[in-house]
């Protein structure tokens, strides 16, 4: 799933962007964040356990979290940079000639895999509050 997202965004970005592998790795990270949000939302609802708040105010909280997310982004980016060629070669075989990558079905699956986990996560978080 994540590899497919990587390939999808990479194929789109490489025509227009100087750093397509960075953007596609970023899209994967965003999806991972949304999926984790769903998991933590469910945990919060059932176990009443929430992620710790580093600071009461929004801005300092944001600034304190920045380094953590930078490290995560760097790790994901490095992981995919090393595997980019392999992933693209694998999906080039599938979508190279016969099948269409930007089909309505694929676009719908991609959007749904971002939106649905996030909506489930939000629903559970709001029910837990």
């Amino acid at each position, binding site marked *: 799933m994540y590899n497919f997202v990587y390939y999808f965004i990479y194929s789109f970005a490489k025509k*227009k962007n*100087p750093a397509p592998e960075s953007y596609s790795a970023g899209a994967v990270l965003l999806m991972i964040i949304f999926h984790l949000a769903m998991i933590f939302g469910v945990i919060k609802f059932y176990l009443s356990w929430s992620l710790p708040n580093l600071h009461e105010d*929004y801005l300092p909280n944001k600034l304190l979290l920045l380094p953590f997310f930078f490290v995560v*982004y760097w790790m994901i980016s490095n992981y995919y940079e090393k595997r980019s060629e392999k992933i693209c070669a694998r999906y080039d075989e599938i979508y190279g000639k016969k099948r269409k990558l930007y089909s309505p079905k694929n676009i719908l699956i991609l959007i749904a895999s971002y939106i649905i986990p996030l909506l489930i996560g939000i629903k559970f978080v709001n029910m837990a509050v």
Partner: protein
Amino acid sequence: MGCLKLTYRNETSPLRVSRELENDVVNWQVWMSKNTFKQHKGVIVAQNGGNDGNLLGDASTYLGVASSALLLSDEFRATSTGKYVHVNGATYKIGFRGNQHLSKYTVQASKINTASTARFVGKISNALVLVGAGVTVYDGISNGWENHHTADLLVTGGFYALAVSIPVAGWIAGGVYLAADLTTQYYTGKSITENIFD
């Protein structure tokens, strides 16, 4: 697929095909000396009728005969039609007006430098956008999801899509929004979206 033997001006193997890929795409190396070589990628454009071992053209133009096939590199194809191969693998026109006053090597070098700078800026801006989205989701999960979190994610998604399709515009818009958001938070204690939606 193994190595195909090549000769250049009757000397054995200054060109070596390292491996063959599918769809007639070939990687090969032009050996400048015993220890240095330049890697090239190209296609087999014509069969040579079994004229093994003869090189067509000069090695510097990256033309060669691999067993019975004529090799033509992406770079050669691009430069022969007034284009260049970008570091991202795509081929672009050389539309730089001052080209006639510079050697082609200077132009190539400047394009590589520009490309690497653009890649660096792209990576940093991308990291900032994603980190912002991550922080928004974290805040929403830990403090309860509110309208401004959704608005933040929509804005982030918009900038991300813009940066992917029109890089420079996306970087500028994202940078300006980030600065405005931080300034608003510093003075009012709330982000732009918090002020508008909550």
